[in-house]
């Protein structure tokens, strides 16, 4: 059995005990999440600002985004959040195999998200729906359509970068799961990767309606 070769987690030398280690890490994670919320929050408020200033550009440009693809990506992200939470739950139960299965499922769903995003970007490039001076879309009456697509690429690009980082965390968790036995006392890597993925979900839940539905 592979589990017999796994080592138990040991508290890092600069912590007194497991409680101090976990609570310190959790505090750091929440601070990090807070900084991320501030960054994406500013971006979303910027989006609302642009929507208010150029409703014509949003109304005319939004139909060029396929809400079906956005909905599919919403499904991928929400299911990924669910499988990551399950992975953390199985880590608590020492079910190393099920942890890996759920991590791999989450990884595949994240890949699915990026594939859909690539399809969307490809269509935008093909039709010249690009930011600033690169914009050469045809049939637009609004003078500010390029601003919408500028916002679209910045917002979804930054979000996609976070999806990539989340995938990196999942791969890291998979590596840790081959080395260390997760227990009820130590499942921190999977829990924190799951929290990060929930943040990715949370941002998308605002971005999806702002870009694809409201306009």
């Amino acid at each position, binding site marked *: 059995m592979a589990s017999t070769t796994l080592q138990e987690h040991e508290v890092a030398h600069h912590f007194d005990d497991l409680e101090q280690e976990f609570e310190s890490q959790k505090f750091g994670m929440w601070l990090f999440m807070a900084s991320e919320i501030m960054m994406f929050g500013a971006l979303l408020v910027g989006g609302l600002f642009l929507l208010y200033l150029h409703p014509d550009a949003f109304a005319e440009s939004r139909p060029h985004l396929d809400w079906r693809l956005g909905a599919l990506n919403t499904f991928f992200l929400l299911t990924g959040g669910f499988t990551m939470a399950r992975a953390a739950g199985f880590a608590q139960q020492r079910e190393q195999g099920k942890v890996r299965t759920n991590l791999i499922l989450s990884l595949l769903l994240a890949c699915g998200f990026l594939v859909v995003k690539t399809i969307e970007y490809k269509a935008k490039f093909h039709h010249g729906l690009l930011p600033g001076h690169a914009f050469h879309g045809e049939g637009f009456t609004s003078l500010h359509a390029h601003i919408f697509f500028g916002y679209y690429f910045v917002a979804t690009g930054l979000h996609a970068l976070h999806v990539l980082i989340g995938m990196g965390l999942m791969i890291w968790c998979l590596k840790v799961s081959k080395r260390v036995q997760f227990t009820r006392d130590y499942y921190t890597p999977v*829990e924190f990767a799951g929290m990060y993925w929930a943040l990715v979900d949370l941002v998308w839940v605002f971005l999806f309606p702002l870009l694809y539905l409201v306009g």
Partner: protein
Amino acid sequence: MEHGHDYQPGHTYNFQILGRVYAGLLVLAALMIGFFLMPIERLPIDWLDLHLIKRLLILADAITMVGIIAGFLMGLKYEKTKLNAVIFLSNFAFLTIFLLFVMADIGMRGAMDPSFTKQLNWKSPVTEENNKMQEAPAP
């Protein structure tokens, strides 16, 4: 490994609750798309801004989803250390203040600064291309 006392980090994950949360999120996502597809234009109501109602419904749906994600998937509901919850939630308070300032700015800048419209109507590439086409000599 010495733990000192019967300390257990975090909360115990309940798969049944997780399943319900996931189902709830999918239903809310479907509802959001339902609001978007709702043909409100056909309703014979002109005393109410139905487009605004539609936007508010979508926004309320998104906020509910965010609450569920933060509460259950991030584990905010089970957070024992209140400081962590305060740190996370205070962000939304700051964002609200930021949003209010932005709204006040948009709403009042025109009254204070007559050049507001000129400043924000950035030159569009579409306009530039149209101008070039108009300026080009006829063949």
